[in-house]
């Protein structure tokens, strides 16, 4: 059974999530990767080097949900599965495509038991639902953080598609938060800051620790709402779902929706003034203390121990 997978990319670069999606999709069958972008050439070239990719299909075009759904629809009939990342792009397009094709999609997949049997979290990750999909075509999104990336070293052929779809919705402006920290949803180490970080300046302290550890930086919804951190840093049920090897939570009490976002973390280390907060209770290692005192000391201790990981 062959799979068409929509490649995840941003700002002209293939996203590290794509290698994880290929790993998931290749459990269902041979994977053709589709790159749709205004300027797709460099992205397609990077995509062709991923192992387990049979071929890379390239279409020049818009990335609105309408346009992507039409492009995917034009190829869908040749596959048994059409899939994408459970990201803002995949969430936007796969349900739209599903309704057009009269298929019930299965989204946010975190485990694959068989090519038509999938597990996905519900109720903010407080329950796991396993479904069998008996439909002739499977429309799926995978949670990239739940899968280990495939290696590089492939050399898939690249094929250009005719693509002339148009969309009623038009992109007027993209507001990208400039940052040189690793991608939050695929980083091996993530540092999260809560509302008690207190200000955007406070978050610079968190970022400094992030630099020492080569870590991505995230924030709780409350910290984003308060304007201390940009919205694309939000970790949680409706923000980004992360699954790093190490998550360091700083000044985070552990609201349900935040816990939903970090359930996949292998190890959780927490610093908080309140020893009784939910996150301190479930952390593998917890330290009670004021973050403004502890974090600078922690950076100094890590330097003493010679811990330094390059970013990116």
């Amino acid at each position, binding site marked *: 059974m062959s799979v068409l997978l929509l490649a995840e990319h941003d700002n002209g670069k293939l996203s590290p999530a794509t290698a994880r999606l290929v790993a998931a999709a290749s459990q269902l069958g041979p994977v053709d990767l589709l790159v749709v972008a205004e300027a797709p050439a460099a992205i397609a070239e990077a995509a062709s080097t991923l192992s387990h990719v049979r071929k890379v299909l390239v279409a020049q075009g818009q990335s*609105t949900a*309408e346009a992507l759904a039409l492009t995917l629809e034009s190829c869908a009939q040749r596959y048994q599965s059409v899939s994408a990342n459970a990201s*803002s*792009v995949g*969430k*936007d397009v796969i*349900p739209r495509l*599903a*309704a*057009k094709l009269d298929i*019930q999609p*299965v*989204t946010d997949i975190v485990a694959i038991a068989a090519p038509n049997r999938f597990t996905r*979290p*519900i*109720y903010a*990750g*407080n*329950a*796991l*639902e*396993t479904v069998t*999909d*008996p*439909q002739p075509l499977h429309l799926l999104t995978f949670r990239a953080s739940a899968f280990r990336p495939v290696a590089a070293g492939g050399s898939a052929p690249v094929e250009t598609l005719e693509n002339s779809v148009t969309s*009623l*919705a*038009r*992109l*007027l*402006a*993209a*507001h990208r*938060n400039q940052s040189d920290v690793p991608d939050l949803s695929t980083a091996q*180490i993530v540092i999260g800051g809560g509302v008690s970080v207190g200000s955007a300046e406070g978050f610079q302290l968190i970022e400094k620790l992030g630099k020492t550890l080569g870590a991505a930086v995230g924030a709780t919804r409350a910290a984003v*709402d308060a304007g201390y951190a940009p*919205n*694309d840093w939000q970790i949680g*049920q*409706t923000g980004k779902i992360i699954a790093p*090897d*190490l998550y*360091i939570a700083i000044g985070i009490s552990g609201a*349900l929706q935040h816990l939903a976002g970090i359930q996949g973390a292998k*190890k*959780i*280390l927490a610093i908080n003034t309140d*020893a009784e907060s939910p996150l301190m209770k*479930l*952390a*593998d*290692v*917890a*330290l009670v*203390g004021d973050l403004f005192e*502890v974090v600078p*000391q*922690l950076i100094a*201790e*890590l330097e003493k121990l010679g811990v330094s990981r390059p970013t990116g």
Partner: protein
Amino acid sequence: MKILVAVKRVVDHNVRIRVRPDGTGVETAGVRMSMNPFCKHAVEAAVQLAEAGKADEIVVVSIGPKNTNDVILTALAMGAHRGILVEAEQTLETLTIAQLLAKIVDEEQPDLILLGKQAVDDDSNHVGQMLAALTNRPQATFASEIKLDGTTLEVTREVDYGRETLSLPLPAVVTADLRLNTPRNAALPMVMKARSKPLAVRAAADLGVDLTPRLIVENISPPPERVAGRSVASVAEFAAAVAAEVNEMEAL
């Protein structure tokens, strides 16, 4: 301009849910239910457009058993003008919900459809996108800002890389994110008034949509539990724990 808002009744988001031991689902009997939080933002956005003189009618629709009435009443108390309950006792999949809503859209012909971006029970995040496809309308999901200028919407959406602004012609479908607005709590007089607003009841079975689920739900289970950790007394010990994790990671 007419706005249609679709709302869902879910287990209240403050309730800690319990998975039934037999794996058939999540316990909902005797559990507090309320309007899905994201749907509240959609209702609030509609009411604000009406208050700004940009919309003259807000129709709120919900699908579910008889007692789904209560979330429609909540929306009416917030300022919606009339309600439609599409009554269905069984659990419906998102595609079926979107197909039922498309039938209501056919009848009502709204200029704008607002929904919450996802329901906090199934966490699907499907229905707005599906409804946009079925009604052949442009969509803007995860909206954190809506500006209406004549028949053109300017919507700022929260995406993985930050934010983006879309322009889309009406009629369109927009799904609400949390930062779109602050939903109001209806004052008691509005709650009383809501009861006298029109509320039509339709049977889902009469709308010409096949209600049979496409997927087979095998099992609902609780997530694996985390083992409680240890607490350390000093920053040095904490740093050593971080260093140990980093070393273990690098060794892999």
